[in-house]
């Protein structure tokens, strides 16, 4: 047997302290530094864990560490417990998270999760029961270094104060020890809530039933097999016993029944053909120099929620088409997402790259639409696939390109189910010189296939309006 050089999993991955070394007991006792702000990538890949220090004297003190997602899921998320009230607490957290989601969109950059995954962690401020305690400015106290060489000197700094809330302002529900709890939510649930809140209509994949897929249904029986069909077998046994006259049907006694091998039937399958529905969603983003972090964050939020909602709606539509009920496992089945970023030229990217890329350059918007058209023509022909295209940008374009853009969009609108154009107002691009006025003039805000939206300020209401415009019913 050949011994592999490398194990298929990494045994050395442990909970890592911010310094990179594994977390030990002494680290936790107070020598490790508190967590720094993690580098901002799209969905957080580390989760803060808070440990409470002894709370016997005065206010409890907390220390927060960043723990990688894998370790969080393995060690901390669902610790095996025999405690009956942990379920109550988790349910309460889930309610809080649900309320928070209902109130407004949460920035996906603050959620924890893997890009492209089905489950994200929604941050919820940790709940603590307030009591009357001393305030911040008078929070002196007595401490000690214990037996040893460390002697305190007058004026020596022993700790940093935290940035508390303004004591004269209204009390927030913010967690006082600064770390959030992450409540796992499936993207399906989030989509459901948003759809209910915004009143979005169901998707209608029109006439795309040319795709056929084979389905296997385990509803038949056969006289040979591996899994017995118990109810049918029992019925057969009783039937054959009655016809042989061995037992009285009115008082059945189990010991009297005689089982013959012919009575046993096994589960079997039939192959049927089922209509298949496929959707291709193409996201295009302008990553030229005029798009700063602020605009890109708006784009990321919109793209994330659009993706979530469409994947759920499409899953529901597809299940209806096949005559099945939609379950959470069906989220995103049959949906292919393509990500394109462009500056002067367009490139296809992975989802992770789409959300984290930084580039700069001039802007030619038609390059993105050209590439999108090429992808659709080769890989997702409109006859078989439902195609949705969404473009995000700040509207800045080379002047010579504007006319070509309008024609392109007009042409593409006949080849897609829906085409969306979302423009964020950027500091470097003025509205009057962007594409939006021209598009607005040509297509208007009520065009059936081409949907335009403008995000003036990166607020949650603006995002919500944009998403509603993309998906609303326009018949």
């Amino acid at each position: 047997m050949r011994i592999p050089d490398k194990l298929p999993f990494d045994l050395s991955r442990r909970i890592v302290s911010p310094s990179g070394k594994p977390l030990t007991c002494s680290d936790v006792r107070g020598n490790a530094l508190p967590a720094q702000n993690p580098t901002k990538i799209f969905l957080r890949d580390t989760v803060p864990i808070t440990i409470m220090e002894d709370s016997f004297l005065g206010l409890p003190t907390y220390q927060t560490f960043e723990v990688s997602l894998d370790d969080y899921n393995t060690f901390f998320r669902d610790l095996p417990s025999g405690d009956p009230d942990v379920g109550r607490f988790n349910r309460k957290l889930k309610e809080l998270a649900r309320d928070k989601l209902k109130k407004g969109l949460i920035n996906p950059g603050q959620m924890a999760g893997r890009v492209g995954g089905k489950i994200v962690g929604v941050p919820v401020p940790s709940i603590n029961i307030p009591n009357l305690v001393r305030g911040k400015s008078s929070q002196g106290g007595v401490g000690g270094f214990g037996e040893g060489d460390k002697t305190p000197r007058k004026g020596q700094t022993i700790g940093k104060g935290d940035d508390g809330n303004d004591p004269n302002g209204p009390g927030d529900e913010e967690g006082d020890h600064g770390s959030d709890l992450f409540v796992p939510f499936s993207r399906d649930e989030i989509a459901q809530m948003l759809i209910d809140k915004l009143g979005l209509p169901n998707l209608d994949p029109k006439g795309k039933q040319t795709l056929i897929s084979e389905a296997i249904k385990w509803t038949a029986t056969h006289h040979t097999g591996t899994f017995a069909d118990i109810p049918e077998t029992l019925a057969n046994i009783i039937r054959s016993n009655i016809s042989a006259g061995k037992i009285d049907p009115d008082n059945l006694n189990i010991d009297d029944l005689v089982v013959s091998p012919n009575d046993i039937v096994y589960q079997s399958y039939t192959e049927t053909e089922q209509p298949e529905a496929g959707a291709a969603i193409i996201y295009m983003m302008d990553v030229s120099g005029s798009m700063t972090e602020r605009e890109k964050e708006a784009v990321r939020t919109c793209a994330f929620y659009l993706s979530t909602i469409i994947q759920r709606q499409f899953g529901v539509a597809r299940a209806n088409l096949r005559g099945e009920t939609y379950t959470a496992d069906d989220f995103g089945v049959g949906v292919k997402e393509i990500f394109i970023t462009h500056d002067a030229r367009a490139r296809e990217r992975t989802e992770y790259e789409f959300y984290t890329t930084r580039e700069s350059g001039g802007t030619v918007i038609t390059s993105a639409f050209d590439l999108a058209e090429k992808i659709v023509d080769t890989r997702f022909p409109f006859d078989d696939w439902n195609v949705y295209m969404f473009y995000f940008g700040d509207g800045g374009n080379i002047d010579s390109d504007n006319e070509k853009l309008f024609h392109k969009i007009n042409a593409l609108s006949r080849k897609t189910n829906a085409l969306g154009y979302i423009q964020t107002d950027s500091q470097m691009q003025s509205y009057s010189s962007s594409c939006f006025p021209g598009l607005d003039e040509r297509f208007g805000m009520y065009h059936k296939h081409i949907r335009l939206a403008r995000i003036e300020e990166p607020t949650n209401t603006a995002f919500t309006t944009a998403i509603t415009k993309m998906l609303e019913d326009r018949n």
Partner: protein
Amino acid sequence: MLIKRTFGSSCCSGVAAHAGRSGGKSTSTFSTGNVGQRSYLLTRETNPELHNWDKTIRGIAQSEGLDPFSTVWWICQRDQLLSAAARMGFPSNFSHWKWGQDFKELNIGHRLGNQRIFEMVVNADPAVAYTMEGNELVDQKLVMCHVTGHSDFFKNNITFANTNKDMMDAIAEQASFVGKLQSSGISPIEIEQFFDMAFTVDDLIDTTNLYPNAIEFDDARLREPEPIPDNFGMADVSYMPPHIQRRFNRPEVVAKAREDEFQKRLADTAKTPVDPDADVLAFIIKHSTALRPWQRTLLSFIRERSYYFAPQGMTKVMNEGWAVYWHQHLMKHSAIIDPSEVTSFAAHNAGTLAMGSGSLNPYTLGISVFRDIKERWDKGQHGREFDQIEDRKERRKFDDGSMKGKEQIFQVRRLESDVSFIRKFLTSKVVADLNLFKFGYDERWNEYVVTSTELKDVRDGLVSQFSNGHRPRVLVVDGNYGNAGELHLTHDNPYELKADYLDRVCINLFRLWGRPIHFDSVMDIVVQEMKDVQEFDDDKGKFATVKKEVDVKLPLVPFRLTVKPMKCISHDHEEPGFQITKVRTYFHHNQWIQGTDKKDLISQYNISAGQIL
């Protein structure tokens, strides 16, 4: 609920009553639903080795003079121990998400090795103690010695004299009451929300009066009710002719009206305590207009628990110090410790007493002071004669061989609580040994700095921290404030309270009381004032005096916080909410009056009634 075994040994005979108790909705973490027995009672049959050790240790402890309650040991799994610890030692507690949260945090701490709870002991007679099954023998022995110390302290310390030694039963009865409530139609969410409210105010009790903690319904100390005017109940019929006047104001009707009014005024005076009353919870339970009967009962449960746990909060340092002292002392006994276990014991002991990064460890402080007391009284280093010796070397070497240390520490454990313990027995030697310091908050740099290492400052700092069980002291001044049934509370300590917590607690007080709340407290505020400031004038090239508006920080300004119900407008719809107003108060004519100037308004804002906490 529990194990169906026959109990042979006598120390468990009292257990059957406790063991059999299972409330209607009690969360018994010791159920028999799992494979095998996950937890068991320590008896001669279940674990003879540990049982023998228990008896040995108890015998040796009693020969040393300790007088503990008899202990009932539960050997359980790690998560059951953490469950019990999350519920403060009572597995049959009613359900609440707080236990779940504490359990999760303890579990994480346990996983990372930060907080390793090895045992949990409950103040009861017989004392109930929990320990983990997987511990090594040396750890189990240490735990037993430690628990013996705690048990002796619970039995003999004066602060614990009035705690309910049948608290296990009481808690189980509370849990069964909550269960009956749920089955009688009150939704569990409502009950949980009420408990959330009650937990925020559960420390508003009178720690100076732990003895009569039953609510007295006949308040003998009443004010005189206001006298009823002579023409009360009589209509003015002077304009009518005399033969008609006779028909009005019948004596029996007027007398009844006056009697009713007298009773009403009597009831109103009962709402104003003669002296400010620190037992706020009792006051709310007695006089609140917004509580339904089951809510009153639940609140009185919370109050009972607070009174039960208050002595533990007031003697934490002493209790732990005493237990550590005895586990160190008993483990040296040759009958208990085995030479192979010595290093393990030393490591565990050191871990318990560790004090890194500046935070104070109550175990270490307690044990150091107890050891210091023993040494000083053994050598006679106390009393007037000793205090008069000035020379430091002579003081250190003083030894008159009186050997009264043991007697003294036993007396200390009987009579003192944390505040008096520190105040009387903390010496500069202990301060130096433990490198204690007092620190304060430096606002300029937003950090904490050491302000002093002197005995006086450290001692005063500790005493002020420990006073009233680490909590501020809140008093009820008037339950009929403004003759409108509003509650007027005041806060007795010379420090500022955490503002957002104060808001939330006052909102919950409003919900419990039903009428507006007025809370007097102090706070640091920043005011703009016109002041003469020396500034360098660039034009003239020299310093000149200029009148400028400067931020002046006023420390500890008295103010009054008022909570009133108010409709808040948020997101285009109206929501019920509260308005919180903070106004400066001034002492005028022997009482605190709100300022009426516009400057005196510190802040006013609305909070919607969304969350309970």
